[in-house]
């Protein structure tokens, strides 16, 4: 499985890690004498873009998790839905326009099926993370070495700042991922495979982010030389944007080092020149008018409204006149009032999937927030699903 050469490289990389001090900036210039960074014990998925998990059983458990999740949502969930809508209709309540969650929960009472389905959804989420965390950590030294060795390589750059003052809201273990985005050095690996299960898209080879990159709007004057992704996570969108715009300067920032380190490792592996920095979206450190296009994919539902305001005024500052802002996220309640089903699912997501800020986000009016920040809003932006996503974009006055 893991060969001897890989093992030998490990100790060299581990030494490199211990030499690091803050703030830590790595560029291709620091290359660590041809360290082989790629640890791929079981090869990659058919397209060659995403590595297979390091153990067959891990892959199988993930396969089960995805199928069980699908069953609890679609099969079991749909049965429950029929039942719940029946109860609501009996009480002359329109199920497509949900009462507030307190009222809905009161009506549901202690319905065993609805709560059993929630148990299933929660447990499968826990099993899924446990499997990934245990599995990657069983090979921890090797994966840490892989990350460390990629830090010394290009293409692309990685700037880490261990002393960054991360706001409290960004420290929560969202999606109940153990350690969240910041607390597990292998969090990037865990997130990548975990989120594919959550989105029922296990074999995705970045397919979603590649499709998203295809529809990112460009400024009216056609100039697209510089791009920034806020809350970039493991940098799947910047990677896909580099493929669409090979000559543009592509940047991504995030508060979480484990996510960025993994993203940089993949950039090296895929040979894509992108720049990743551990910085705050509300204080990006970029010069005013720097970017032609700025995106944020599923960032804002994880941010309190107060801080969203700060991020939006920072966007306004660093976007160049005529530049485009494309914040892709879930619909807010003002865009579509929730059905009883989505109200209940979103409550589960908020309380048991630890989406701490998502209800506050859904209660906000995002178009209005962008207007308050001085941006010109377009509520008919390109979207991969009109029913699901917010379809918003904004521009800065030319």
């Amino acid at each position, binding site marked *: *499985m893991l060969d001897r050469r890989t093992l030998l490289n490990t100790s060299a990389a581990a030494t490199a*890690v211990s030499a690091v*001090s*803050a703030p*830590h900036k790595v560029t291709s210039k620091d290359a660590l004498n041809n360290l082989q960074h790629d640890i791929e*014990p079981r*090869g990659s998925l*058919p397209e060659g873009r995403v590595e297979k998990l390091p*153990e*067959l*059983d891990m892959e*199988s458990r993930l*396969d*089960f*998790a995805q*199928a*069980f999740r699908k*069953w609890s949502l679609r*099969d*079991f969930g749909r049965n429950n839905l029929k*039942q719940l809508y*029946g*109860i609501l209709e*009996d009480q002359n309540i329109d199920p497509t326009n949900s009462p507030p969650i307190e009222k809905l929960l009161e009506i*549901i009472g*202690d*319905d*065993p*099926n609805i*709560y*059993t*389905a*929630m*148990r*299933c959804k*929660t*447990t*499968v989420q*826990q*099993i899924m993370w446990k*499997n990934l965390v245990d599995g990657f950590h069983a090979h921890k030294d090797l994966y*840490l070495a892989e990350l460390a060795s990629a830090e010394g390589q290009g293409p692309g750059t990685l700037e880490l700042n*261990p*002393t960054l003052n*991360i706001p*409290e809201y960004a*420290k*929560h*273990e969202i999606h*109940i991922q*153990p*350690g*969240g985005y*910041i*607390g*597990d050095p292998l969090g990037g690996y865990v997130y990548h495979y975990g989120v594919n299960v959550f989105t029922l898209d296990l074999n995705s080879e970045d397919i979603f982010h590649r499709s998203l990159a295809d529809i990112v709007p460009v400024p009216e004057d056609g100039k697209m030389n510089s791009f920034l992704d806020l809350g970039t996570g493991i940098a799947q969108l910047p990677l896909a944007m580099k493929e669409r715009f090979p000559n543009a300067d592509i940047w991504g920032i995030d508060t979480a*080092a*484990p996510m960025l380190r993994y993203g940089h490792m993949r950039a090296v592996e895929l040979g894509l020149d992108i720049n990743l920095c551990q910085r705050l979206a509300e204080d990006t450190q970029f010069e005013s008018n720097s970017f032609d296009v700025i995106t944020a994919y599923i960032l804002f539902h994880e941010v309190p409204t107060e801080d969203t305001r700060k991020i939006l005024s920072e966007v306004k500052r660093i976007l160049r006149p005529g530049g485009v802002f494309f914040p892709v996220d879930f619909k807010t309640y003002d865009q579509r009032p929730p059905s009883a089903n989505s109200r209940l699912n979103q409550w589960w997501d908020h309380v*048991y999937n*630890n989406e701490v800020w998502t209800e506050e986000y859904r209660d906000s009016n995002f178009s209005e927030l962008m207007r308050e920040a001085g941006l010109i809003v377009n509520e008919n932006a390109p979207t991969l699903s009109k029913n699901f996503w917010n379809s918003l974009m904004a521009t800065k006055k030319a």
Partner: protein
Amino acid sequence: MSNKSKTPHTHREDSIPPQTPDVFLGNPVIDNVMSSMIALGSEFWALQRRMNIVETLLEKNGSVTNEMIEGYQPTDDETSAWNNQRDRFIKRVYGFLQNNNSDNKKDS
């Protein structure tokens, strides 16, 4: 050694875990038993899938090594047959959870 910063550049210790206990079924013991039961299904499926691979390899080659098993990439036909086998397993075993004996039941 530099004592500039004790925070490693790899991760931090101050992530905030979920605050609400995940008890849905009125008694945490029942919740725990349910979770173990679902986790066993996950382990069972890992064994079943391994068995499928071993059988497939034996049929094709007459012998197997651990490396062949770990590295096996199922064909599209195998993947769809195994997905079907997995989904039937889930329905057979966990379909019981859908039995409804509650007062809330609208129609039977």
